[in-house]
């Protein structure tokens, strides 16, 4: 992408110098530098952005990671960590003059401590593999991003990933205990502990969601939770998205925190239904999927309460999954929503804003207006319980200028989220993609504070340069005005 050139972050070490140094610490098959070998690493899940790295390093031991970091630090070479490459914000986009450090070979589950209900795993372990390994002890790892069959736990920590169950069980940051991290100087440190807290600053929180900007995660200890005795899901159809939105508020006002509470709009319902035949009501304007879990008794109590609330909130139909198979089918449509959209459009672009839920009608209306303005269709998938909105913009990259229009449209959606008091990213991260919108969300002094924190860990700026936090220069170029608190473009909206 021309608009994302690395002009701000140029480095000048010659490839041969780097390769010669790395050869001393890595086996032949752990070091790639021929362009045909590099191309599988040229992008992450946001394939609109592509860049070949200078070198790919695929170490197998922590000591090798430390060596790679020491060499890069010494030679002044940038390092971009990569887990499974499913990220959706270009966080693992390589640097042209740098090392792409793949953690793909760190695949072992090191220990499952059933007494203390934790698992210690290497960073390349897939999210779902942890729950699979813990299942025989009737334990599981709660955060479940839709990409869980593929994404790595290291990537989850780096992005603070969420999932459809995070309203009740929290995000990655709430479900990890300890990290081992290699600093840019090549030192190995332990952050957090096996207890519920650790002395000093909460570096565990700071490291979570830091997008590979502060260190490389080489080991993760996660909390495991007891598998609920039972889970039950309800599907409710609505003839109006706004009604579906208020149903969400009504459930929460009743004192029930569902395990999952997801909304899909008409276009997503139809696409998902065509794809996986989940039996979704395709004439509905919106559906809500509401899962409650816990003990048998708790689920029975809550499921009838939720059913009543959905009905009194104007649902045209409420179905309860009759068994686990039907429950899986209800979820299948939601979990396959992204690929389902991929079938009906040559390309799609996934946004990730979070808003205070009460502003849902305003934001959906705003998106609809922008959609007609840009002539691009949008399907909305929504982690409704926690206000995290995923509008999917449908476009065709082969049509000249359409990607640029899509990006602009996407940027406008994120700005709209900020205007109503929300954020530009709920779980996918800033990466390379939303770097300009950071200028909208934060003031100069706040961005400077972020840079100072980055400097505390990485004074030379070698870890994932150019991502996550824009330089002030970049913001000036982008020309974005921070949306000042109290001077909102939507003064009629009640905020307090």
């Amino acid at each position, binding site marked *: 992408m021309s608009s994302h050139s690395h002009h701000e972050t140029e480095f000048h070490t010659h490839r041969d110098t780097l390769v010669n140094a790395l050869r001393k610490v890595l086996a032949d098959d752990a070091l790639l530098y021929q362009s045909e070998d590099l191309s599988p690493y040229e992008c992450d899940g946001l394939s609109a952005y592509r860049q070949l790295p200078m070198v790919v390093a695929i170490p197998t031991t922590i000591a090798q990671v430390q060596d790679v970091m020491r060499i890069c630090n010494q030679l002044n070479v940038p390092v971009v960590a990569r887990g499974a490459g499913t990220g959706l914000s270009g966080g693992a986009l390589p640097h042209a003059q740098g090392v792409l450090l793949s953690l793909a070979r760190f695949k072992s589950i090191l220990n499952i401590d059933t007494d203390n209900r934790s698992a210690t795993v290497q960073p390349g372990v897939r999210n779902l593999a942890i729950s699979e390994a813990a299942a025989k002890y009737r334990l599981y790892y709660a955060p479940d991003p839709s990409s869980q069959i593929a994404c790595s736990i290291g990537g989850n920590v780096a992005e603070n990933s969420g999932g459809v169950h995070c309203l009740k069980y929290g995000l990655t940051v709430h479900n990890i205990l300890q990290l081992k991290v290699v600093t840019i100087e090549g030192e190995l440190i332990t952050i957090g502990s096996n207890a*519920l807290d650790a002395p000093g*600053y*909460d570096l565990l929180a700071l490291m979570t969601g830091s997008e590979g900007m502060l260190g490389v995660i080489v080991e993760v200890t996660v909390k495991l939770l007891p598998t609920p005795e039972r889970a039950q899901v309800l599907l409710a159809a609505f003839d109006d998205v706004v009604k579906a939105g208020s149903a969400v508020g009504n459930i929460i006002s009743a004192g*029930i925190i569902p395990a999952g509470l997801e909304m899909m709009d008409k276009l997503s319902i139809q696409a998902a239904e065509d794809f996986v035949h989940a039996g979704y009501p395709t004439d509905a304007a919106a559906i809500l999927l509401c899962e409650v879990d816990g003990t048998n*008794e708790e689920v029975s109590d809550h499921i009838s309460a939720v059913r009543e609330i959905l009905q009194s909130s104007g649902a045209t139909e409420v179905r309860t999954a009759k068994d686990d198979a039907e429950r899986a089918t209800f979820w299948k449509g939601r979990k396959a929503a992204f690929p389902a959209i991929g079938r009906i459009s040559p390309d799609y672009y996934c946004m990730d804003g979070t808003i205070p*839920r009460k502003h849902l009608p305003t934001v959906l209306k705003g998106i609809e207006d922008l959609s007609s303005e840009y002539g691009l269709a949008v399907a909305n998938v929504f982690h409704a319980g926690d206000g995290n909105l995923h509008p999917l913009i449908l476009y065709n990259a082969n049509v000249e200028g359409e990607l640029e229009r899509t990006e602009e449209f996407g940027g406008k959606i994120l700005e709209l989220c900020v205007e109503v008091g*929300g954020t530009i990213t709920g779980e996918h991260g800033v990466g390379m993609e939303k770097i300009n919108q950071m200028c909208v969300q934060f003031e100069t002094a706040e961005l400077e504070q972020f840079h100072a*924190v980055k400097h505390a*860990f990485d004074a030379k700026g070698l870890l994932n340069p150019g991502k996550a936090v824009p330089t002030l220069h970049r913001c000036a170029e982008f020309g974005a005005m921070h949306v000042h608190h109290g001077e909102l473009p939507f003064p009629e909206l009640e905020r307090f």
Partner: protein
Amino acid sequence: MGLNINEDISQSLQERVSAAMNSKTALKIVGGNSKAFYGRETDGEILNVSGHSGILNYEPTELVATVRAGTKLSELQQALSAQGQMLPFEPPHLGESATVGGTVATNLSGPRRPFGGAVRDHVLGVKIINGKGEILHFGGEVMKNVAGYDLSRLMAGAMGTLGVLLEVSFKVNPVAENELTLYRNCSIDTAITTMNEWASRPYPISGGVFDGENLYIRFSGSENAVEAARKKFGGDELEDANNFWLRIKEQQHAFFGGDAPLWRLSLAPASPHILLPGKTLVDWAGAQRWYKGEANADDIRQAAQKSGGHAVMFRGGDRDQAFQPLDPVVMRLHKNLKQAMDPNGILNPGRLYAQL
């Protein structure tokens, strides 16, 4: 909705911090002074934040409350309770004057912590004054937010050494429909094992304590869920259970009496009982052990570390060494962070560690 919003004094606080930054004068940040005993001592000019108070925005259906740091914790809890909601971390007040700012700065959480999360888990956003006298916002009022580094949670437990808290947005939760506390007499070893066995099963547990005599388990949930737990767990129902949990959380239980130093050991929850001269109260279903006794500080710290955690000299011992020493590389990163947030080292210097 807002409640009891007093005059906004953030600007005068900011001016004080800026002036202190320029003259390199240390500031001692004070809220309600209820936790003045906790941690190391700092002796700068007093910066009193308690006047900066009020509940700025509380939206029960959004599960979010934004509060000025000087607001009394009890006032916030009353407002939540009027809507059937609560702070899920059950914060100890340790004094009537406790404020929201002090609650976040110390990151102390009550018995619900292993099930409901800690203070830091519920901080969604903050407004602070950093050591340069700049007013900054991080995070916000939404549940999920990964824009920028998580500097909001970083404030929790930082003891005011990284910024003066002006406002905090919390995630709040509904209060459970029913609660029940069951107890039975047993040994400390049996209590630790039993708590952990129960916590490994999908029951609606919200507290696990052993007070030297009895094991207490609290259940919170729907009526039928709590009743089912009663049948499975057995034991006797504790009358006046709210008062029991309050006395544990506020350290008013008889265990906490007497002059011996009080230590807080934070451990992997199933760790066996650590034998030290004195007595132990188990909280957090095993993950937090209160130890009252005269054992040598190094022995206590080593034992805690062996059990996967650390020890804090909570009250009555050598305040200079309140917190477990850090690994040298981790300490270097701490110093760098302090430098990044408070370059002249004026905010509560030495309150957490001598070097910060």
